[in-house]
């Protein structure tokens, strides 16, 4: 069931009605049948995979966090749980991308190519597996007490809004949200509906149109050359952002209808002034997750501390202490790339290329320190240059991300400087270009309003502008819904493509 479908809206309406009919005390437990139903819509195997992960991590968390068990036993319990769940994820992802391997496995298993594993790939296993492994590690590291009530854990582990594409939640935060008393509130409805409508606006008006340009340009490098490549690459940046952040708007909005707050995943990412800042604004919960559960534990491990000691002796204190950081970053970014899909185009486009940007930036820092005063880095023109430079570097990564494979991405970059071998024609009318342009302008204005130069500052909320102004709130809701109905690419004969990150 796509999150931008009429079926999903009906499902949400039913869930919300049942949820608020239930007595306040048991309201959160009404989410369990909703979660199970959502999984069943995605296929019975989806439910089986989710339940398997929930049961194993629940048990693993209990053992890993039990203080009466010796640390060796607790570590072993956590390791077995993580290996099992992560192994399953890797197997399914690997299976999904390696056709030859898949065929061989099919032969071994004696199943057809339309096998049961194929159903499991698109359900957002990458998201819930990481979230549940995080829970086990939190228990092991005594950040939280293990949950003893399986049903309470089941609500967290299978909470349907996050199941397809995140955001990545922490048990301490989300369980506290579930435990609050949830009462019907018009304010939640206003915020939830605006967020959902805004998500539909982004997906159906912007992402789907930008997708037409992307599909054409990435489809034929011989015809679409020069400025078309620039257009295609920029269109993909718009498509991916509106697709993923639109999905998050729907997810967070649905959760808001249930009076459960989830963390934000985007914070005006294309206004970042450096690649590091970009990753603090794009897919925020993934970055935070990997910092806490991979990057920090790696750096704190005795092996990395030892590497630091040796490198300090070899290269001096200032340079030497950076060596373990660089090493950990290569591992971190390879993991980020691999997580997006176990193929090189992701490992380069979403991983190692960004690692290269950050590490080379760190290596050149002494030089930057000298030239910053000359370039007047505290002034607006230089800051605008930084935003543009960061965006161009991000676009380069997206070329690999969207291309069919690495050699296709290189062909695409070559096409930038080549003459067209035929007549380029993108199947988008002038009216559609105007709609796309106007919608992107609205999106830019919203992101600019939300933008705060310091990424740790809470972004300004556009929805908060409607507080105490019910007419404005209704006007926004009506305009968004009308815009989606009139300009959205949907309906009979048109299937909105599924969210890009829902298949990761």
């Amino acid at each position: 069931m796509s999150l931008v479908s009429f079926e999903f809206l009906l499902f949400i309406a039913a869930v919300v009605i049942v949820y608020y009919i239930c007595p306040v005390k048991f309201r959160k437990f009404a989410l369990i049948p909703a979660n199970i139903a959502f999984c069943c819509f995605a296929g019975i195997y989806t439910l089986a995979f989710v339940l398997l992960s929930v049961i194993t991590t629940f048990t693993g968390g209990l053992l890993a966090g039990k203080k009466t068990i010796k640390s060796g036993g607790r570590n072993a319990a956590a390791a077995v749980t993580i290996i099992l769940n992560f192994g399953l994820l890797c197997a399914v992802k690997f299976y999904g991308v390696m056709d030859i391997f898949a065929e061989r496995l099919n032969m071994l298993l004696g199943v057809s190519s339309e096998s049961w594993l194929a159903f499991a790939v698109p359900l957002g296993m990458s998201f819930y597996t990481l979230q549940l492994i995080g829970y086990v590690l939190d228990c092991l590291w005594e950040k939280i007490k293990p949950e003893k009530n399986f049903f309470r854990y089941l609500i967290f582990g299978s909470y349907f809004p996050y199941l397809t594409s995140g955001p990545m939640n922490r048990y301490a935060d989300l369980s506290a949200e579930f435990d609050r008393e949830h009462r019907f509130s018009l304010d939640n409805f206003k915020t939830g509906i605006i967020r959902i409508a805004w998500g539909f606006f982004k997906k159906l008006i912007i992402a789907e149109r930008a997708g037409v340009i992307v599909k054409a340009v990435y489809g034929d490098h011989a015809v679409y050359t020069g400025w078309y490549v620039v257009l295609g690459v920029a269109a993909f940046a718009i498509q991916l952002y509106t697709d993923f952040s639109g999905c998050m708007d729907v997810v967070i909005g649905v959760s808001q209808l249930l009076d459960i707050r989830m963390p934000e995943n985007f914070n005006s990412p294309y206004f970042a002034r450096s690649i590091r800042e970009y990753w603090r604004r794009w897919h925020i919960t993934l970055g935070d997750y990997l910092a806490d559960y991979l990057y920090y534990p790696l750096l704190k491990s005795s092996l990395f501390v030892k590497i630091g000691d040796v490198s300090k002796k070899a290269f001096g204190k200032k340079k030497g202490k950076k060596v373990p950081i660089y090493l950990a970053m290569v591992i971190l970014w390879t993991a980020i790339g691999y997580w997006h899909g176990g193929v090189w185009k992701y490992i380069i486009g979403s991983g190692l290329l960004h690692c290269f940007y950050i590490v080379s930036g760190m290596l050149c820092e002494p030089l930057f320190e000298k030239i910053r005063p000359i370039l007047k880095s505290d002034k607006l023109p230089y800051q605008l240059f930084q935003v543009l430079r960061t965006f161009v570097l991000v676009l380069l990564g997206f070329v690999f991300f969207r291309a069919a494979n690495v050699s296709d991405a290189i062909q695409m970059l070559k096409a930038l400087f080549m003459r067209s071998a035929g007549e380029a024609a993108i199947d988008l009318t002038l009216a559609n270009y105007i709609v796309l342009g106007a919608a992107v302008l609205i999106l830019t204005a919203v992101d600019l309003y939300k933008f705060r130069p310091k990424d740790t500052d809470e972004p300004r909320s556009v929805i908060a502008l409607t507080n105490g102004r019910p007419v404005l709130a209704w006007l926004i809701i009506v305009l968004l819904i009308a815009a989606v109905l009139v300009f959205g690419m949907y309906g009979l004969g048109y299937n909105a493509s599924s969210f890009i990150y829902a298949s990761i």
Partner: protein
Amino acid sequence: MTRDEIYVKLNEVFQDVFDDEDISVNDSTTADDIEDWDSLEHINLIVAVERAFGIKFSMGETTSMKNVGAMVDIIAERAG
């Protein structure tokens, strides 16, 4: 160890890690107050503090200490 004694030693560690002799920390100091204290340098600092005081922070503590005051609380509890 008193909190004052901890702070004397802790200031030395911060000054050494961030290469700045003017750094002086207190209970409310956070990563926002020290220019070079970012996610990349955080573990270098944690490991240096562990060595200076002969203690270990758990991974949970490493990633959830809210400010230097929280760090000093743990040091005071473990360093005796």
